[in-house]
């Protein structure tokens, strides 16, 4: 198998805030739930904290896979008006499932050919750096700035 290493990308921010959430969903609580389960246990949500100090090696395989999915997605969603439909496309989902290693490619794609990648970026990073009431262009710029600050976009 080929392994080609190109540009290593390293996050340069020292920390991101850790978010906590309850393990047990109390909206589902009923009278029959045993008493000892009714205690709040807090555990960290993984994604944003995990973005720290990582170096992603961009292999040819990952890049090819990413660009293939991008082209399929662009071709098959180019005349849709619904973002929900665009982001439920299997190629878009596949890119989201590639996870953090695809972030540098995603930011490059967003910069070079702005398109509806905001949902993918949010799903992977669990962040949303755009201001309230941002329009699409404003939100794209906010994401690009966010990516630059973290060394994900040169």
């Amino acid at each position, binding site marked *: 198998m080929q392994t080609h290493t190109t540009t290593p990308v390293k996050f340069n921010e020292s920390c991101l805030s850790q978010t906590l959430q309850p393990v047990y969903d109390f909206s589902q609580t009923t009278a029959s739930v045993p008493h000892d389960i009714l205690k709040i246990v807090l555990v960290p949500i993984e994604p944003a904290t995990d973005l720290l100090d990582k170096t992603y090696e961009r292999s040819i395989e990952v890049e090819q896979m990413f660009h293939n999915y991008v082209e399929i997605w662009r*071709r098959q*969603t*180019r*005349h*849709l*008006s*619904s*973002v*929900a*439909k665009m*982001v439920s496309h299997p190629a878009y989902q596949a890119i989201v499932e590639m996870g953090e290693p695809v972030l540098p490619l995603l930011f490059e794609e967003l910069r070079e050919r*702005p*398109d*509806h990648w*905001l*949902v993918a970026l*949010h799903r992977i990073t669990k962040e*949303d750096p*755009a*201001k*309230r*009431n*941002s*329009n*699409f*262009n*404003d*939100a*794209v710029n*906010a994401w690009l700035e966010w990516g630059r600050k973290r060394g994900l976009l040169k």
Partner: protein
Amino acid sequence: MGEKKGIAQIVRDLELEEDTGLRESDYEVKSPRDTTYNCIAFAVGDLTQFWDDLDSPAGMRVKGYYWPPGVPGTKTLAGWIKVFELHGYTETDDSSLDPEYEKIAIYVGSEGPEHVARQKASGAWVSKMGKGVDIEHFSLECLEGDFYGKVVKIMRRKCQGGRVLE
């Protein structure tokens, strides 16, 4: 060589024809491709925002999109109708040209509303094609098919001292 006429008169959009079944004679391209606004934004005259609720409740959405507060979701015909009601439109059955009214036509497919077109003073219709170009088309039927479904709702509003949009 004549005067430069710009993109509208020199470009066909083969991708658009491939996706929608449009023929060259059905339409004219009127703008470059643009991912920043969609058909519903275009129909209400807003070229600065992409109107969509992302199928999520307000407050849970990724930022960068606009959907009017309190309006049913983009997946519903009721939501699209409400958007146009907020802009002064009421329902009608008549898609023919009436100089006193501006009209829009909503296309619905098997999964809900897919597209909306707006009528010009000439009687032609204009549409923003998803993330693609704006076009002028010469019938509503030319966009009907598998991609955008069929026109199921016509709405109109009175022109007040001239058309608001053209």
